[in-house]
């Protein structure tokens, strides 16, 4: 008889290696979604045990206790207690511990035991503990705790064999031992008592060497040095942006020629007409011009994931805490803001780690000013068309430098906006606490990073395939209809709806140096910033024929003045050009009002920045 799906839940403190265990168990068989009603990320994966039992495992948000002081932690508590709406009560809870650091997990486990859920304690990273001379009496620990204990090395092949075998063994006799929950929120005295109990058990079962991890101490001596640490942080960020620009280029060229070839093929195969124009100008060049940026997005995420796995992110928060505090930001805001460099949506969602409401709101309001990866296509296009690729001071690429400058502008204005918010809007207010574990450094694992990048790349491609595709169809339609009357000599697009809309908006945008083609491109760019590139391509392609579509950059270089190009860059630093971000802001703040505030303040900044940039550039002779 087929046994029902076995439901596992992974619970553990932050940095316990929960996610690498999750990746080791499930590989790429993962599903990322949201919990109903809230936007906490829900990660579920599937695998089959050695005895053939089908298992679903949910990776719950990391927590130090079941008190539930943030939305993430509430999910973990409710899920384990079986109170999360629409969720199955887990058959078995895997409490994951970093073997080198058992204190906090053992305390959490003692609290978890009160929920009555069947449980296994997984001593993860057991190899690292052994290397550091930590020995654990596993049998005694299991006896003292009253739960089965198993060791695992998530990052090694076969390192979870014992866990899988134990899961089979326990799941066979599960039904008999379901217990009721006697859990309730612990008082301070009980909390202290459980920590004492945990410390006693550890003293009995674990022998710790006196020496801490020397590598972590050595690295921290440099990386957390008050001055040196900040220099290292700046170097890492600078290197990251140079890499995004330089390393991605060959791959992007390859993708681009691939799509060009496909376009040529369609052009040659299909008869002249609407279908040919739709496929070549609308679909292939449109979606293609966005997918070309996949390599850059992968590189950004590669850096973010590497730094996170290595254990550097918490250090960055430590270094930035007071500096960001000067601008009214919490040190914990650093990670959401850094994620916003990839995309503001996960960035805004990860502001949940900030438990103070007002700190969180400030972070949400400024997150869209961080240069997200969707701006990269626009920046890249304009920079490579207008900024010469020469070296300054012998070793710095000028294009990379401009890119860095755009990022720096975004960051500076985010800090300035935050300062203004703190000063004018949210005055009566003491700083929220900053308390964070600084985990020991770990060598990042290729497999974990690869799975992380794979899920994100997939999300980007799905987006390109849905939102961006439908916007491209829309822009192609607007740019192609109505068709020009027979015998017209002007380019077809001059007769289209797009031209009418663009020309209607032109007077508004003329003071910042935008022509009507840009106005047309900005409209679908509201759905997703990067679409503007494709839209410009489509507009100029239908205007100028297929030669134009192949070389958007070169066309722009002939059609725009340098002042217009710079103005466009300034616009893109600030403009609220992303409907999904606005939607997430509404959802996360629970208010249309804050969404409107974000939209208008960004729009005003964008217009002002473009206006100044354009007029200064014209005055300097770049008009």
């Amino acid at each position, binding site marked *: 008889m087929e046994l029902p799906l076995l439901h596992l839940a992974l619970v553990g403190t932050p940095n316990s290696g929960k996610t690498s265990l999750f990746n080791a168990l499930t590989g790429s068989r993962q599903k990322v979604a949201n919990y109903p009603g809230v936007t906490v990320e829900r990660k579920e994966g599937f695998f089959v045990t050695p005895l053939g039992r089908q298992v679903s495992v949910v990776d719950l948000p990391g927590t*130090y*206790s079941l*008190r539930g*002081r943030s939305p993430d932690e509430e999910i973990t508590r409710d899920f384990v207690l079986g109170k999360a709406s629409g969720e199955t009560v887990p058959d078995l809870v895997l409490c994951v511990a970093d073997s*080198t*650091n058992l*204190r*906090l997990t053992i*305390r959490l486990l003692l609290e978890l035991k009160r929920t009555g859920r069947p449980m296994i304690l997984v001593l993860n990273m057991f190899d690292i503990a052994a290397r550091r001379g930590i020995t654990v009496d596993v049998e005694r620990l299991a006896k003292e705790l009253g739960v089965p204990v198993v060791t695992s090395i998530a990052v090694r092949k076969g390192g979870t064999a014992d866990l899988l075998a134990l899961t089979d063994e326990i799941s066979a006799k599960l039904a008999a031992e379901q217990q009721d929950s006697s859990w309730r929120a612990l008082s*301070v005295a009980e*909390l*202290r008592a459980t*920590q*004492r109990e945990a*410390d006693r058990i550890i003293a009995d079962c674990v022998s*710790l060497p006196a020496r*801490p991890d020397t590598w*972590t*101490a050595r690295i*921290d001596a440099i990386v*957390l*040095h*008050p*001055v040196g*640490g*900040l220099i290292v942080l700046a170097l890492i960020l600078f290197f990251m942006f140079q890499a995004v620009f330089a390393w991605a280029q060959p791959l992007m060229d390859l993708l681009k020629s691939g799509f060009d070839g496909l376009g040529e093929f369609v052009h040659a195969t299909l008869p002249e007409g609407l279908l040919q124009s739709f496929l070549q100008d609308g679909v292939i060049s449109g979606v293609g011009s966005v997918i070309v940026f996949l390599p850059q997005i992968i590189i950004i995420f590669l850096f973010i994931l590497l730094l996170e796995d290595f254990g550097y992110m*918490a250090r960055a*928060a*430590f*270094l930035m*805490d*007071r*500096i960001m*505090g*000067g601008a009214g930001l919490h*040190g914990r805001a650093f990670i959401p803001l850094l994620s916003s460099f990839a995309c503001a949506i996960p960035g805004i969602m990860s502001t949940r780690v900030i438990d*103070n409401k007002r700190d969180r709101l400030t972070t949400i309001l400024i997150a869209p000013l961080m240069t997200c990866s969707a701006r990269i296509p626009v920046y890249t296009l304009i920079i490579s068309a207008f900024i010469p690729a020469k070296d300054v001071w012998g070793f710095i690429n000028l294009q990379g430098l401009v890119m860095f400058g755009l990022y720096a502008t975004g960051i500076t204005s985010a800090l300035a906006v935050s300062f203004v918010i703190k000063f004018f809007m949210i005055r009566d*207010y*003491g*700083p*929220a*606490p*900053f*308390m*964070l*574990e*600084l*985990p*020991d450094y770990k060598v990042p694992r290729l497999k974990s990073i690869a799975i992380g990048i794979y899920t994100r790349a997939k999300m980007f491609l799905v987006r390109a395939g849905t939102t961006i595709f439908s916007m491209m169809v829309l822009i192609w339609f607007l740019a192609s209809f109505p068709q020009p009357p027979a015998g017209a000599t002007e380019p077809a697009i001059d007769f289209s709806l797009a031209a009418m809309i663009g020309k209607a908006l032109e007077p508004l945008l003329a003071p910042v140096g935008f022509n009507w083609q840009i106005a047309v491109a900005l409209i679908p760019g509201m759905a997703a910033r990067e679409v503007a590139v494709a839209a410009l391509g489509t507009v100029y392609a239908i205007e100028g024929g297929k030669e134009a579509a192949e070389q958007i950059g070169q066309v722009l270089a002939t059609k725009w003045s340098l002042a217009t190009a710079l103005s466009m860059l300034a616009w893109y630093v600030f403009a609220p050009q992303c409907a999904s971000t606005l939607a997430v802001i509404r959802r996360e703040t629970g208010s249309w009002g804050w969404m409107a505030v974000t939209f208008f303040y960004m729009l005003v900044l964008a217009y002002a920045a473009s206006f100044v940039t354009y007029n200064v550039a014209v005055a300097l002779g770049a008009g």
Partner: protein
Amino acid sequence: MTDHDDKRAHMPLGLALRGYTGVIQHLSTKDTGSALSDIELESRLIELGFVEGARVEVLHEGLVGRDPIAVRVDNITIAVRRREAMAVIVA
């Protein structure tokens, strides 16, 4: 408690400089100026391992106002602002 601990003056961890080592004597969350309630602050400190008898060492300090501090608590490292560390009485 050892003689050594008795002789040393009790002080809040929030005033300790880099290189300081000591043992946690008790938690006193009154009047720290933290934005958290006394109970919440005490709970969080305990959850991060700041309990009586734990060994602490101040490993690193931030640039601005020597804040925040990175504290070794037994065998883990916790970053905390001085304001909250005032609640941890060490000797």
